[in-house]
């Protein structure tokens, strides 16, 4: 089975002012096969956000290995990590994180812009994705002209535009009412059904239940790990 991502014994220490060391991750190893849909749960301070940041190449582990799409990215520098983020990763945030002064299409286009790809084909792909998430008639709207659910759908389209190895979702339904949250979850399930690997952080058990498996974290360590064997 091919792995989309794999972390091996990663540790992350933060040194606070005054020399106090916080061990946010204390040796975590997980495999994410291609087509996986994982929910990561845990209390605040359990290290789930730190793990997601590492998986998202926004931060580097103090120790351990992170292999993304067959490439070891644990020792890359800041610029190289930026390159990895815009080519191989898609982000969905709790608060959508669209850029307010840009239109729907321009927001979706952003990862391609940072790849240096501003071809007409790229533009066409952005429009196509906007249609796919049901916003074909709002291409030139600004984020503040859209509802929360619509904004999150723009964010999903943006996360897909670079055809990423892994989609990272941080509480994707956290700011939405349950009906809209349901819509978003159906969309994620559909993407997963089409073969996308999704890693999602959530604290809502019923949202986590929609994933193939759930990873629980506590004090920087994996607590339980429902096996990925159900998958194949």
């Amino acid at each position, binding site marked *: 089975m091919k792995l989309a991502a794999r972390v091996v014994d990663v540790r992350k220490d933060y040194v606070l002012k005054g020399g106090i060391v916080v061990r946010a991750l204390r040796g975590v190893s997980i495999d994410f096969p291609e087509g996986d849909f994982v929910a990561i749960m845990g209390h605040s301070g359990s290290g789930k956000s730190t793990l997601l940041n590492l998986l998202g190449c926004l931060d580097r582990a103090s120790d351990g290995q992170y292999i993304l799409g067959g490439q070891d990215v644990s020792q890359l520098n800041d610029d190289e990590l930026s*390159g990895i*983020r815009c080519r191989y990763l898609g982000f969905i945030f709790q608060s959508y994180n669209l*850029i*307010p*002064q*840009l239109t729907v299409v321009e927001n979706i286009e952003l990862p391609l812009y*940072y790849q*240096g790809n*501003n071809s007409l084909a790229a533009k066409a792909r952005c429009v196509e994705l906007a249609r796919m998430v049901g916003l074909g008639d709002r291409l030139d709207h600004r984020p503040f002209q859209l509802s929360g659910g619509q904004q999150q759908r723009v964010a999903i389209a943006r996360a897909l535009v670079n055809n990423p190895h892994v989609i990272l979702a941080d509480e994707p339904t956290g700011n939405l009412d349950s009906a809209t949250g349901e819509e978003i979850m159906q969309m994620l399930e559909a993407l997963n059904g089409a073969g996308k690997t999704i890693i999602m952080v959530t604290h809502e058990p019923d949202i986590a239940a929609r994933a193939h498996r759930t990873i629980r974290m506590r004090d920087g360590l994996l607590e339980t790990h429902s096996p990925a064997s159900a998958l194949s």
Partner: protein
Amino acid sequence: MGSRFLQTLRLGLKSLLLHKLRSGLAILGIFIGVTAVIWLVAMGEGVSYQAQQQIKDLGANNIIVRSAKPPSDVTRGGGFVIAYGLLRDDYDRIVSNVPTLLQAVPMREIRKEIRYMDKVSDARIVGCTAKYLDINNLRVERGRFLSDKDLEEANNVAVIGNKAAATLFPYEDPRGKFIQIEDQFYTVIGQTASKTPSAGIGGSLSAQDYNNDIYIPLTTLRWRIGDMVITARSGSREGEQVELSQITVTVRDIDQVDQTSEIIESLLRKSHPNGDYAIVVPKELLRQAEILQMMFNLLLILIAGIALLVGGIGIMNIMLATVTERTREIGIRRALGAKQSDIVSQFLSETVVLSATGGALGVFFGFLVNPVISGTRYTFGRLFPDILAAIPDNIRDLEPRIAAWSVIAAFLISVAVGVLFGLYPARRAAKMDPIEALRHE
């Protein structure tokens, strides 16, 4: 790559338009700075151009020797007549003893009343030779100037200045008419074209208005009018006896000017122990004027530099606020793959758009310096005519001259100020931790 640059620029412009007032204020600082540079330099150039033009009129190859009235206790002659100044002998001595001399033009000037029919004009009577025309860059408008023959024969002929002609002959061609100076009549043979009056330039050279002059042969002046001028004033009479008012010596090469002026000085010192003469070297004046201009420009650049510095600080201030306000946007962009250099170029392009817009506006308003100055002068003249009249001529009549270098320099400096003062806020934006930035509310 080029279109990517354009896109960065377009996005920058878009963000700036979101905060029109804020961007406008940032632009204002640079705009004022650039306008100030162009205006100040233009005025400085105007002043020094005026001065240099007047000095150049005197001719850089010339040495001007003038009679100067000495302190009253050291004069030649007795009684109420003061005799001083250059002598015809001095002229002969200079002509025969100065080896580098190309030509020497003697001149005697006296103020007299001129009459034609019922019209009277107070004018400067200039007794001179034919060469006086060229040496002062005068042009003949009608008829001809004095000839060598006129001098030889001491003819009663006169060439009149433009303004004098307008006063005495408002509706007639002056040629062939007779004008009266004291009890003598002179035939008008020509009229000179209008010439901008020169202001006084240090030493004993006072302001000269050539337009009100009457030129007659030097020989004629000597025989008909004489060397003596008597002025009756409130019961007492004063007389001055001057043979020549001025000798303009021209040398072949500008390098010979200093040496020649020393020779003339040593020649004259012997016969004029009381120092009743002055030697004016236009070349020297020109150099002084140029040094003065350089210092003036330096001062203006300093002032303008301070203005642009203040503008730059304004821009930096606003960009720092913008960066803080857009922390989250920076986080999003970083998460989606923006490199630090992408963030730097994004914010830098915004500052450069701001400062270049300010610079362009500044250049535009810079070009308006002439209409603004003349408009101000007009309005001021209407409101406070007395004050305007009290201002010295060369300041009141100042025509600013826009210097091309100042326009280019001001614009480039404004852009440079944008880059310089934009760099710190942009780097600060780029150095943010993406995770922290994403969490920023």
